[in-house]
């Protein structure tokens, strides 16, 4: 075992870069989805799917490019993040392809839109763009601290991204989309990264003011008004998102993100109390006059109620998917999760995993997400600069909250909100943004794990020799 030691006389011993570990894990992350792909093909048609070679090579190439980029630009990065993301992305592609084969969904699309086009090829393209962005982040962002410079620009950008969808028509009841010609973008996915950058920059500067310049009141530290301003603004923002865009998930995500980062920056528990109080006030306030939110809560409590079944059917169908999967699942390609219909391969894709891979598969699957979050938090712990710490915990916290909100919603643990399961759900914005997120985390972890540069030879060395009489 090599131990990193720094003394003035012994040069730094390089920390193991773990790139080969990453390569091995990546090989698994490619092989497992390829097997899954073959499995689906055999289950559905009884023969090897025609595209298996292309799919395998494509996935392998993407993983290979990403790996080479890490090897070149982030030599000391965490070895687990990339394979985990690649595995999830690959499994997601298989599931989307599997749902593309569903006659039920094809017929539904033909009836509603007069035609059906498979989503898997598009998702493969989005994944390629996502990995492109990942490589771009590693190439262009030599040091994550550069992002500090853009604190207020980030805030402006995030605000614009969040407010823009208000001016576009609602899609399926939620205003979370911007449509630019043939493209639709879900800006919330990108906003989550940009807002984490803003918070990190802002809090790094203000953390002492927030933590110390406060009065004690009933056992809590109340901050000064001018420090509290931006926080109140974010709270108001998240409520506004909720009201105008009827996007429960995104508002929960931003608010949770901010509370986490405030707490980490100030190390004051009172912020959590404030955060919870404020979100409770906001949620109750909005729920009392916003029918969309009330409805969601209703559906959550009574998914099988006769009166609301027409609208709550999706949630009920998702629950029945999980039930149908049971302990071991029906096997890939052999479930009926496509009964969910609309959004089966995006918001509800987890149900297909639940049904076809069963409890065993779901546990493994959730643990994959847990591992990504864990590696993110570890990166935050290892980071040496407060900005990096805040950014890493912000991004991984956002990731964790998103996974919880989506999976919890689909599984009926909390009311359903319209967000996508990172990496597996169909949707360009989501895949691309999450690859960028992983890119930034890898950059921070590279900086954190990079051994300290060897100390410069001391010019005084000669002078301090022991002089013998």
């Amino acid at each position, binding site marked *: 075992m090599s131990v990193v030691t720094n003394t003035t006389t012994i040069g730094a011993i390089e920390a193991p870069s773990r790139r080969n570990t990453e390569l091995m894990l990546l090989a698994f992350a490619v092989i497992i989805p390829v097997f899954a792909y073959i499995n689906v093909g055999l289950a559905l048609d009884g023969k090897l799917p025609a595209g298996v070679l292309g799919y395998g090579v494509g996935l392998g190439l993407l993983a290979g490019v990403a790996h080479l980029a890490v090897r070149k630009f982030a030599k000391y990065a965490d070895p687990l993040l990339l394979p985990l993301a690649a595995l999830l992305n690959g499994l997601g592609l298989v599931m989307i392809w599997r749902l593309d084969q569903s006659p039920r969904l094809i017929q539904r699309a033909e009836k509603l839109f007069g035609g059906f086009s498979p989503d898997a090829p598009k998702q493969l393209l989005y994944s390629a763009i996502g990995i492109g962005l990942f490589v771009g982040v590693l190439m262009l962002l030599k040091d994550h601290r550069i992002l500090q410079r853009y604190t207020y620009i980030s805030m402006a950008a995030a605000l614009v991204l969040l407010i823009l969808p208000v001016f576009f028509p609602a899609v399926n009841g939620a205003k979370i989309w911007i449509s630019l010609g043939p493209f639709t973008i879900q800006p919330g996915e990108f906003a989550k990264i940009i807002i984490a950058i803003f918070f990190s920059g802002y809090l790094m500067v203000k953390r002492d003011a927030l933590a110390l310049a406060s009065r004690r009141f009933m056992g809590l530290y109340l901050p000064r008004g001018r420090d509290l301003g931006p926080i109140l603004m974010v709270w108001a923002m998240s409520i506004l998102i909720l009201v105008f865009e009827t996007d429960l998930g995104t508002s929960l995500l931003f608010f949770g993100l901010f509370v986490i980062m405030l707490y980490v920056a100030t*190390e004051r528990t009172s912020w959590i109390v404030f955060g919870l109080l404020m979100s409770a006030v906001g949620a109750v306030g909005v729920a009392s006059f916003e029918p969309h939110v009330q409805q969601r809560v209703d559906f959550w409590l009574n998914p099988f109620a006769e009166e609301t079944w027409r609208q709550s059917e999706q949630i009920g169908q998702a629950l029945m998917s999980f*039930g*149908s999967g049971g302990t071991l699942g029906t096997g890939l390609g052999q479930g009926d999760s496509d*009964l969910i219909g609309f959004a089966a391969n995006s918001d509800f894709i987890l149900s297909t995993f639940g049904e076809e891979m069963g409890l065993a598969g779901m*546990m493994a699957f959730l643990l994959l997400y847990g591992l990504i979050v864990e590696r993110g*938090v570890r990166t935050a712990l290892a980071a040496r600069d407060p900005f990096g710490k*805040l950014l890493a915990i912000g991004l991984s916290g956002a990731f964790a909250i998103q996974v919880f909100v989506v999976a919890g919603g689909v599984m009926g643990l909390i009311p359903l909100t319209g967000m996508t399961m990172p990496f597996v759900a169909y949707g360009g914005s989501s895949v691309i943004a999450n690859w960028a997120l992983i890119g930034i985390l890898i950059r921070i972890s590279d900086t954190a794990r990079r051994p300290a540069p060897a100390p410069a030879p001391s010019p005084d060395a000669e002078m301090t020799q022991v002089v013998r009489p």
Partner: protein
Amino acid sequence: MNKPLRRIAIFCGLLVLALLVRTNWLQYVQADDLNTNSKNRRVLIERYAAERGNIIVDGKPITGSVETNDTDFKFKRTYVNGPMWAPVTGYASQAFDANQIEKLEDGILTGNSDQLFFDRTMAMFTGDKKKGGNVVTTLNGAAQKAAYEGLGSKKGAVAAIDPQTGKILALASTPSYDPTTFAGYGASDEKAWNALERDKNKPKLNRALREVYPPGSTFKVVTAAAALEHGVIDDIDAATDTPEPYILPNTTRPMVNHANGCKNASLMKALEVSCNSVFAKLGDEVGRDKMLETAQKFGFNDPEIDTPVRAAASVYDKNMDRPGNALSSIGQFNTATTPLQMAMVAAAIANDGKLMKPYMIDQLETPKLDVIKKTEPQEMSRPLSQKNAQLLQKMMENVVESPNGTGGKAKIDNVTVGGKTGTAQHGENNSKNPYAWFISYAKTADGSPVAVAVVVEDSEAKRDDITGGGLAGPIARDVMKAVLDSKK
């Protein structure tokens, strides 16, 4: 900043843990509830996902499956001679669920039953397509046809049993319905279903098993059995001490006879011409509790006569007063019975007092025709001794043979036939056309191969023409004849 970071790590861990607990809860604890949820279409999809097994009569399927190009339901149920067999098969509809054998044996028919686990596993290795198993019934096609055609456009039901085994040979109910017409889930299926639901003749009702009628005079054989069993009568040819008119106990109401010569008539004579007074008095002498005991041995008041399709419970009131009991003894008042129950009565008598449990599923087969489960004949009870059963046989045969007997229409050449007619009044003040009943059995040298009960509910005939012997007797004869012919 590391302390709050560690706490956040724990918080994130708790989020993931909550999800893990929830997925365990959903997929392990609640899985069964969710899978049996009435809104879960998977049950239906599974029911029609593979070619469904068949219900077999005389070695030939009376059901079938056609492939559809639907995404949910790959196969659709079809029925051979649907209306005739509907009381046996029930229906399996993509939109309206299933009932009777189609529902009770769904596991075998879809191939999902645990009993087929081995076959499924083998099919997995051999690459065979999944297919359902078969349900082989005890029914006799010729007897069913005779029963169904005998009922024709009349409203009524027929139940025929093999007295020696309890095998149900015919189970007809009219008016009937064709389960094929609503086997799918399209607009025409819905229309057919709604029309059936609205039809005031209730074609979906399985009258042979699920409808209870006042049995009328056919119940007199039960009263006779009770009188013999409990020693009230020893000699069936001895005159009884019956006045004419007989006044119901504790009332001033006379028991009206439609027959002549009932005064002090012997049991033999009383059954032959169907004397109300003799049997009402006999029932009173036996007493309610002993009447009840015998009736229950025949199967009355049993809510769980499962063939396996459950028959409605026939009723002999447990708490009625003396006049009520006397009236019940001639099949009126509260007494009500299913056609199956009366067939069981005839069968028990024909089988020398031994009542066999009625059943209609002979065996269950795998898709490869291996037998999974065979129903063995089972004794249900002994309502009367062999000696008394033979005495009753003598009386019932007399009903058919004697020139004055009411059951002459059931006579079959060269075969011993015993029977009893019944004309049950119903409606307020007996205003409606009475139900015509006939129960009978045929006997050969090897014992009795068939006992049958026929009820014709309502017919076009004028009221005065309705008698059990006239309307129901010929149907019973045809059914018995069909069974006898198929034995040759």
